[in-house]
Every structure is written in C-alpha cells, then in structure tokens.
C-alpha cells in the first residue's frame, strides 16, 4: 500500500464517520417536516380542488397527474336581507327612526349594492372557507340566488340537489349596519352553518354573527364610493372570520 493509498483510505473513513454523525440530524429534519404539512393541507383546502389523497409511491404517473375530486361539498348562499339603523342621542324609538329614515334608506341600498349576491359570494370565495370552518377538503359550490329568509330556519333538509355523502351549507342570513351615537358605525353579519351527516339524519346547525367597526362607510351621495365599498367588503370578510371562530367554539 502506497502512502497515497493510505491518505485516500483515511479520507474515506473520515467522510463515512461524518455521514454517520450527520444522519441523526437528517432524521430530525425529516421528523420535523410533517409539522408543516397541515398548514399546506389547509392552504390546499382553501381552493375548490383540495390536495390529492396520499398515493402509493409506485403509483403510475397518470394517476399522479389527476388530483382526486373531493368527496365533500360546501354550498354557500348569500343574504338578501339588509338592514340599516341609526340611533341618535334619543336612544332609538320612533322619533329617532323618523329623523334618520332617509339616511337609513340610502345606507340600506348602499349595503345591498356593494354586498349584492355576487359581491358577497366573491368576497367569501377569496377566503380560505374550508380551513376557517374546519371542514374536510371540500368542493365549494356557490348559489347566486339567495334563500328565502323565512324558510332558512324551518327547512331542515338540504337546500340544494346535491347527493354528496359529505355535505355542508353556509348561509349568510342577515347583513346589518348600525350607527350608534355613542359607539359609532359597525357592520354585523349573521351566518348559519349546517353540516349533514352521511345518510338521512338531520343536520347539525350552528348560528352566529360577526361584527366589526366601520370608519369610511357610508360614502355621501355624490362622493366616490370606492374606498367605502372596499371597507365594507373587508369588514364583511372580517365578520366571517370572526363567525368561523365562533363556530369552532360551538363545536367544542
């Protein structure tokens, strides 16, 4: 064995021992990796097509290319009832209502305009509905025609024709603007979440509201409404996020 051969051999031994030392660290890294996965799964669930179910490593490439359609469905309906109320220093009542009647009429229309069915659905769709509601990966189906508010509490069966085995409904029931002399302006939104069990059982129904303050809305007649409308949409989304947290508390 030449001197050069000895040098090469010792280098090989050294690298092998270094690799052995590095192995536990690598193992630690690989064990830390799954902690990130739920977040990634949540992100994937926000879209209509959630992350594909885990596939065996040896699956053919064709199967890997087509993610499985989720078994679950979340159907969403907008609200069609808008209320606006201003309570002045008189603290409400008929005189107060009469004083603010014209203004409240305008604000109700402004709400119905900025948060029309299309606007509500669009602002909800931009949120991670599935993960906020802690639902399994679901396909989101939106309905532009609002449900009759009077029937929402009475009808306990599915409001769509879907026969999906895993099925939930999110209904926006009311949109309420309030201006109080003492507390300022706010938007309150009511939501209902109905989760249907597999089979023909009655749904689990949860109701809650979310409410947040407004600083810009409403714009005065003649003014540009862009900022006020954007704020309204943003607060509507905030209200949903708050409501989703309330739903989570109710299910505990």
């Amino acid at each position, binding site marked *: 064995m030449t001197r050069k051969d000895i040098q090469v051999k010792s280098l090989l031994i050294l690298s092998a021992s270094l690799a052995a030392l590095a192995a536990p660290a690598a193992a630690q890294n690989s064990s830390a990796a799954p902690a990130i996965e739920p977040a990634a799964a949540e992100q994937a669930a926000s879209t209509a097509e959630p992350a594909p179910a885990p596939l065996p490593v040896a699956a053919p490439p064709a199967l890997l290319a087509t993610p499985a359609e989720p078994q679950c469905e979340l159907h969403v309906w907008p609200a069609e009832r808008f209320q606006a109320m201003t309570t002045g220093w008189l603290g409400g009542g008929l005189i107060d209502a009469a004083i603010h*009647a014209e203004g409240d*009429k305008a604000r109700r229309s402004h709400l119905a305009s900025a948060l029309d069915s299309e606007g509500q659905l669009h602002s909800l769709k931009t949120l991670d509905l599935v993960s906020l509601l802690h639902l399994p990966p679901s396909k989101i189906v939106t309905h532009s025609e609002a449900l009759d508010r009077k029937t929402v509490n009475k009808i306990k069966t599915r409001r769509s024709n879907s026969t999906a085995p895993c099925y939930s409904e999110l209904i926006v029931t009311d949109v309420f603007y309030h201006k109080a002399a003492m507390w300022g302006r706010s938007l309150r939104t009511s939501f209902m979440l109905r989760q249907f069990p597999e089979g023909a059982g009655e749904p689990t129904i949860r109701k809650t509201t979310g409410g947040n303050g407004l600083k810009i809305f409403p714009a005065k007649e003649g003014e540009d409404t862009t900022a006020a409308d954007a704020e309204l949409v943003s607060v509507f989304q905030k209200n949903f996020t708050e409501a989703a947290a309330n739903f989570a508390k109710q299910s505990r």
Partner: protein
Amino acid sequence: MYWKSLGAAALIAAGAASAEAPMPESARSCDIHVYPADGVHSVGEDFDAVKRVDQDLRDYYRAAGRSLDWLTPDRQLTLISQLPIARLIGADNSPTTMHSEPLSRHQALEPGPRQPGAGCVVEVMLPQLMLERGGLAGRSLRVFGVVRRYDNGALTRSYSGFASSSMEGFRLKAPEDAPAATSLVEQAYRGAVETVLRNSTKIPRK
C-alpha cells in the same frame, strides 16, 4: 436683424407654449361607450318587516296584474339617449355608442378598459338600479354608476358612486295606476343618471 431674430424666437416660444398647454377637456372629442344594468331591483322595509330584495317589485307587478318590465336594458338605453351625456361628462361633441349587453356591478368595477382604442375613450357603466323605500322614508330610485376615462389606453379619471331621485307621488295599487307609476320610475331614472354623470366630473374633495 436683432429684432427679427428676437421676434422669430418669440413666435417659436409662443408656438411651443400653445402646443404644451392642455386643451380644455370639454373641447376634446372622446368615444363614449354606455352600458346599462340587467334591470331594476328593490330594497325596502316596512314598520314591521325588512323586505327581501325584489319583494317590493314583485308586489308592484302583482298590483298591476302583469309584469311591467321596468327599465329593461333596451329601455334604459332609450332613456339615456334622451340625456346630453357628452355634455354631462364634460366631453362635448363626442360620439356615443350604446351597448345593449348589460353589466353587473362586479363586471363594471373590473379594471378596464373594456373598449381598446387610441385617443380618448369614456366608459359610462350604470350596472345597478334600485327602487328603495323605508317605513318612514319616501320612495326613490338609486343608480350606481362607474365612469372611467382613458387617454391612449391609460386611465386618467375614474369615478364610482350613486345618486338617487325621488319618486314622490308614486302609487301602484291597481292596474290603472301602472302607466303613471312607470312614467315616474323612468323620470326618476333619468334624474338619477343625470346626477351620477354630473358628479363624475367633480373634483374629489381632499
């Protein structure tokens, strides 16, 4: 020689200045494009109940004994064409194109332009019309409009806002009230559109 060259310089300077000075907007010709709404909707409330969207409208048509088809896209365009649109938006002597396809509010607020073209293009989109009333408030018609002006494809002015016009004297309890009620709705529509267009030229307050 000195005075001659000075005069020539003054003329050149004056010419340059006149070329740089912006023309008053009213003197420029633009292509105006107008888009209507899909129809009219209603929001309202009584003393004891909040009405559903379009509930009032259905009640009016029921009282009339038939659908009155208020403010269909075609009818809106007819009514708008009776207004001096170009003057109202500060673009006198501009040709106007009426588009029969209605736009939703969401479509109208999408970044434009809808009509590609060089020069000045003004888009007048009126995507929402609402009949409104309250338990203690009178009836009125509210129009939401978006007016955008593009110069060589670049957005140079944008306004989105609403205006309402009173429908005082509105009554629709029987089929014979329908013609007067329809006339009042259309008059309110013209008034509200006129106000929206006029507001679109106002410089926003800081």
